[in-house]
C-alpha cells in the first residue's frame, strides 16, 4: 500500500454513490498530490467514470467528502469545479470544430475590454498558454476542425489550463491517438507535472500507466482494491487485481498448421486512392494480423474488402471465384463482415435498442418478412452467447459500456454467419475483461472455420492473436511476419527501418 502524500491537492474520503438503488461506488479513498500523476485503472463498470464525474462536479457523492486544495468542497456542476481549478479532458473532445483554437480555449470566459471581446488579447493569451506547455507550433487562430486528433487534445488541455486548473483529469487520453502521437502526449503530461499540476489518469493501456504514473489505484465493482506505488508493482499483478487472472493467460491458443484450411480470399494487385499493389491471401481457420502505423492503409484495406471504398485496380477472388465487392451490401452477400474501428460513429446506432442494433445487418440483407421470428430468436441467442450485459434487449445501446456495445456489434455480424470477418481495432477503448472475451470469440470464429483479418494498433494484441502478420506502410505491403514475431520486427517494418522481410 502506497503512502498518501502529506498535503494532497485532492483527497477523496469514503466516496459512495448509488444510481436507482445500484451501488456504483462504495467507500472509495483517493489522493492526488500536486505534480503527481495518479493512475486509476479498472474494468468498465468498475466505477472509474462515476468517480471522475464526482471529482469534476458532474455528480454529487451520496457519501464521503471531497477535499480540494485543503478545503472540503461540494461542487455544484462542472462549471463550479472548473472555477475551483479542476479540469477534465474527456475521451470525446468538447471542442467546437467550426471555431478557432483561441475561441475554443476561452469559450465561456472570453477576455473583455470595454464590454467587448478583445480578440487580440484572446489570441495572445492563447499563444502564451500554448507556448508554456511547449506547443508553439499550434496556430491559435486555426479552425479546430482542421487540426489532427492529437492537436485537438492539446487544445482541450489548454482550455483547462486557461481556467487555472490545478488538477487535470484525463479520461483515456490516448484512446484516439496514433502511436507516435502518444509520445507527444507523454511529453505534455511531464510538462504539466513540472508545472505542479496534479493529474488523475484513467486508462486501459497498462503500458501508459506504467510509463507515466507514480501511483496506481485499482477499482473493481465500485470499491478500491488497492493503491500501489507504480515502481513496486507489475502489469501481471495489476491485471490480477482488476480481473483476477494472469497476463499470460491473456491470449487464446493460436491455430496449428493443421487448423488452416483452404484459401478463402485472394487479392492480387489491389489498389485504390489509399492502397497500391496489395497481394494478399486469407485462409479459412486463421487470424491474419494487419499491422502498420496510423494512415498506412490498414483500415483502407478492410474498407476496400468490405466495399466501402472498393479497389479500383487488381482482382479479388473468393474461394477461387472472381468477385467484385463494390458495396458493403455486395460484400455482406458474399459472406464478409466488418467490425469498424469507429464504433460510435459507424458501429452502433446509439439511440436504438440492443436488439435493433444486433438485427441491423440481417434485416438489411434479408429483406423478406419470412423467418423474421427465427431471425430474432437467433440474434437473441447470439447476444447471450457473446455475453452482452444489458438491462434488457430493448435498452438503448448508448447506455452500454464500450465492451458490451462491441459485443452487440459482433452479434450483429455473427447473425449473418459470415465466412470472412474483418476486425478493425476490435478492442479499442474496451476494458480488460471484455477484451479477453472478444479475443476468445475471435479465435473461436477462426477455429470454427472462418477466415479472420484483424487490424490492431496494440502490438501485444497483434502479436498475441495473429497466426501471421502483414505489415502495411504507405498503402503497400511492407512485409509479412510469422507467429512469434517480436514487437521490434513489426515496428521496423511499419516505419521502414528494414527494406524487406521474407514471408
Amino acid at each position: 500500500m502506497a503512502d498518501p502524500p502529506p498535503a494532497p491537492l485532492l483527497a477523496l474520503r469514503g466516496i459512495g454513490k448509488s444510481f436507482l438503488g445500484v451501488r456504483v461506488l462504495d467507500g472509495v479513498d483517493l489522493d492526488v498530490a500536486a505534480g503527481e500523476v495518479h493512475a486509476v485503472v479498472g474494468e468498465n463498470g468498475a466505477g472509474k467514470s462515476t468517480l471522475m464525474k464526482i471529482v469534476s462536479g458532474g455528480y454529487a457523492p451520496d457519501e464521503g467528502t471531497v477535499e480540494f486544495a485543503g478545503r472540503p468542497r461540494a461542487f455544484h456542476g462542472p462549471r463550479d469545479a472548473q472555477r475551483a481549478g479542476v479540469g477534465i479532458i474527456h475521451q470525446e473532445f468538447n471542442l467546437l470544430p467550426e471555431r478557432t483554437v483561441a475561441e475554443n480555449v476561452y469559450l465561456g470566459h472570453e477576455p473583455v475590454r470595454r464590454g467587448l471581446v478583445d480578440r487580440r488579447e484572446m489570441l495572445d493569451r492563447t499563444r502564451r498558454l500554448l507556448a508554456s506547455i511547449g506547443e508553439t507550433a499550434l496556430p491559435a487562430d486555426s479552425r479546430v476542425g482542421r487540426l489532427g486528433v492529437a492537436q485537438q487534445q492539446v487544445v482541450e488541455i489548454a482550455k483547462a489550463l486557461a481556467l487555472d486548473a490545478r488538477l487535470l483529469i484525463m479520461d483515456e487520453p490516448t484512446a484516439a491517438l496514433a502511436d507516435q502521437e502518444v509520445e507527444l502526449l507523454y511529453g505534455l503530461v511531464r510538462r504539466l507535472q513540472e508545472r505542479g499540476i496534479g493529474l488523475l489518469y484513467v486508462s486501459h493501456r497498462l503500458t501508459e500507466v506504467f510509463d507515466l504514473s507514480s501511483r496506481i489505484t485499482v477499482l473493481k465493482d465500485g470499491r478500491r482494491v488497492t493503491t500501489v506505488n507504480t515502481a513496486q508493482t507489475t502489469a501481471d499483478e495489476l491485471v490480477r487485481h482488476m480481473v483476477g487472472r494472469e497476463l499470460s493467460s491473456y491470449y487464446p491458443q493460436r491455430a496449428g498448421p493443421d487448423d488452416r484450411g483452404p484459401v478463402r480470399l485472394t487479392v492480387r494487385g489491389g489498389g485504390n486512392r489509399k492502397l497500391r499493389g496489395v497481394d494478399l491471401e486469407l485462409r479459412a481457420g486463421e487470424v491474419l494480423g494487419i499491422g502498420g502505423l496510423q494512415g498506412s492503409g490498414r483500415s483502407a484495406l478492410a474498407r476496400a474488402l468490405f466495399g466501402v471504398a472498393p479497389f479500383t485496380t487488381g482482382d479479388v477472388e473468393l474461394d477461387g471465384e472472381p468477385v467484385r465487392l463494390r458495396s458493403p451490401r455486395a460484400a455482406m452477400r458474399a459472406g464478409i463482415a466488418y467490425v469498424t474501428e469507429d464504433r460510435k460513429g459507424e458501429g452502433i446506432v446509439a439511440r436504438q435498442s440492443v436488439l435493433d442494433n444486433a438485427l441491423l445487418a440481417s434485416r438489411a440483407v434479408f429483406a423478406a418478412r419470412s423467418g423474421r421470428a427465427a431471425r430474432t430468436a437467433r440474434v437473441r441467442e447470439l447476444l447471450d452467447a457473446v455475453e452482452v450485459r444489458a438491462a434488457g434487449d430493448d435498452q438503448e445501446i448508448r447506455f452500454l459500456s464500450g465492451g458490451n456495445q462491441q459485443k452487440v456489434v459482433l452479434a450483429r455480424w455473427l447473425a449473418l454467419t459470415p465466412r470472412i470477418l474483418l476486425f478493425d481495432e476490435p478492442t479499442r477503448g474496451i476494458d480488460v475483461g471484455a477484451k479477453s472475451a472478444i479475443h476468445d470469440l475471435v479465435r473461436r470464429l477462426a477455429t470454427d472455420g472462418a477466415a479472420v483479418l484483424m487490424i490492431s494498433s496494440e502490438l501485444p494484441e497483434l502479436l498475441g492473436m495473429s497466426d501471421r502478420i502483414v505489415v502495411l506502410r504507405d498503402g503497400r505491403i511492407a512485409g509479412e511476419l510469422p507467429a512469434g514475431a517480436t514487437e521490434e520486427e513489426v515496428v521496423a517494418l511499419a516505419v521502414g527501418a528494414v527494406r524487406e522481410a521474407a514471408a
Partner: protein
Amino acid sequence: MTALSLRPARHAVPGVFVALALTLVIGWLVVLLDGGQLFNQSTTVSLLHVAAGLGLVAVGQTLVILGGSLDLSVAFVISLSTLVAAEAMNGSDGAMLPAIGLALAISAAVGLLNGLLVTKARINAFIATLGVGLLLKGYLDNGYDGPAGESAPALVRTLGYQRVGPVPLSFVLLLAVTAAAWFALSRTRFGHHLVAVGGDPEVARLSGVRNDRVLITAHVLCSLCAGLAGVYLASRLGSGAPRVGTEGLYDLESIAAVVLGGTALAGGRGGVLGTVGGVLLLASIDAVFNQLEVDAFFKQVIRGVIIIAAVAVYARRAMRKAGS
C-alpha cells in the same frame, strides 16, 4: 495534415456573393436582350425595398439559426407589428415613436415566449415557434378582416419613401441592423456563446455558457427584427395589414435567405453577411423576373431550384472538407 491546412481560419467569400454577381450580370444581359433595363432607378429602388423587408427578418432569423434554433412565427409577428404600430399611431405623428416602441415591445415579448418554450419547456423549436405563430394567427384572423389603423405620415415619408440617391432609407436601416448583428456575433460574449450553443450545446454548457439565457436572447432579438420589419411594412402600406407577413412568405423566405447565405441550418456556422447576400440574391431574382414579366408560378419553380442547388453545393463542400 499538411502545413497548408493550418492556415488561419479566414472565412472565404461566401458562395452566395458569387451567385449574386452572376445573377446580376446574367439578369442584366437577359433583360437587355429583352429590350429592358435592369438597373434603372425604379427597379433598383424596388429591389432594395424588397431586400430591406426580407433582410430585417432574415438577419434576426440568422441569429436563432446560428444558435441551433429556428423561428417560424416571424411572419405572424410581422403582421401583428404592422397592426400594433398603425393602430397606435392612428395617423398622428406625435404618436409615432411610442407606437414603434409598443410594436417592438410586443414583438420582443413574443420572442421571449418563443425562447422560454424552446429552452425551459424544451419544446422543439420548429413546433414551439409554429405553435406561437398559429396562436398569433388565431388572434389576427379573429380580430381583423383587412387593413386597420393608419401609419403616421412622418413614418411613411421617412422610412417608407425617403431615399439617398437610389438607396431607400429602409435599406440603410437594414445595413445598420446587419452591422450591429455582425458586431454582436464577432465582438461580444453573447455572439461567441450563441455560435457555441449552436455548434454543440453540451460543449457550451460544460464551458460555462448559460445556454438558455443565450438562446432566449437570440429569440428576443429575432422577434425584434421581425417587429422592425413590421414597422417598415406599416410605413410602406400606410396601415396595418393582418396578412402581410404570411402572404409575403417571410417565414420560409427568411430561412431560405439564411441558408443561401451559407449558415448551417443545424447552427454553429455562418453569419449575417452571407444572409444579406442571400436576401439580395432572392430580391435580384425577383427583380429580373419582374422585368421579364415571367409567370408567377414559373418564378416560384426557379426559386425552388436555386435554393436546392445552393444547399447541394454547400453539402458537397462540407463533404469535401470532411474528406480532406
